[in-house]
């Protein structure tokens, strides 16, 4: 035997969009109606699946990036990009991708820091070295 309760009310109850008076009515009805309780449980499960973001994760394909060039070719009045720039950009993305793994290798970031600090220290060291060379040359000349 099917129940005469409007099934939309069950969905409204779960969405929280139900009218307060109707809410009381539906809650009372649920106490006595086995079929509607079952329907409500099923709707709850459905809502749970629909709210689960994992169910809707989308893999973004590489083609989406390439599509940009196709679209831009079809748009009028754009300043054309020179072929050399395109090659450079492709190279850049290749290098970027091939070195992505470096982010996950332990110790790499530290080394990068040390190298950077080292690079900063070099000019000073160079100045010092060149000064001492000049000084040495002067001494030699004086003799």
């Amino acid at each position: 035997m099917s129940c005469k309760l409007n099934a939309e009310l069950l969905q409204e109850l779960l969405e929280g969009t139900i009218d307060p008076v109707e809410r009381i009515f539906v809650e009372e009805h649920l106490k006595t109606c086995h079929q509607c309780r079952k329907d409500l449980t099923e709707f709850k499960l459905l809502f749970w699946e629909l709210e689960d973001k994992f169910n809707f994760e989308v893999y973004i394909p590489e083609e989406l990036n390439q599509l940009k060039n196709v679209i831009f070719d079809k748009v009028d009045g754009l300043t054309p990009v020179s072929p050399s720039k395109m090659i450079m950009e492709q190279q850049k993305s290749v290098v970027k991708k091939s070195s992505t793994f470096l982010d996950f290798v332990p110790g790499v970031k530290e080394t990068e820091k040390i190298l950077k600090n080292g690079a900063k220290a070099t000019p000073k060291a160079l100045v010092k070295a060149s000064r001492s060379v000049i000084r040495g040359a002067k001494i030699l000349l004086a003799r």
Partner: protein
Amino acid sequence: MVVSDSGILKIHNKDKRQALELLYERYKKYVYTIAFHYVGTKEDALDITQEVFLKLFKVVGELKDEFSLLPYIKKITINKCLNHIRDRKEAVSLNKTTEEGEEMHCFLASEENTENSVHYRDTRRILEKAIQTLPSLEKMAIILRHVNGMKYEEIAKTMNLPLGTVKTYLYRGRNYLKELLKNQGIWEVSG
């Protein structure tokens, strides 16, 4: 540096290409995601993405600085999705069978009938398939509500439909999904 939408429109006056690139980078995933959920295949979703951006790029020069782009992009995407299905005869005939309900149930059940897939209850895959079998307007309403988390009023505005109609589509769509998922046996509901 993050540039606002109105900032992009300002850039557009100086450097069209840069502005369009910014737009594409910002919204490509958004458009693709809606399209993918709607059409279900990568190729079709890419087609729609292309159409949406071509349309957007055509009109972007005429938009005013204070114009908010997202609702507009949503609207174009939805229109392109709905038209895409209409253009494809196959998909329309599939939709017609769904309206008869029973036939679609048999079709889906038969596909999942092997012993393996009964044990391998991949809810995500089943849900994805079930959504694909919804009639186009119901499908769009469900995607906007549950994938994009839009409110009823927002959906009504974006789809250009009265609020009551949107509600009906959602109720009908969810009812249909509930029956399909129940028939797939992914829930064990007793009592």
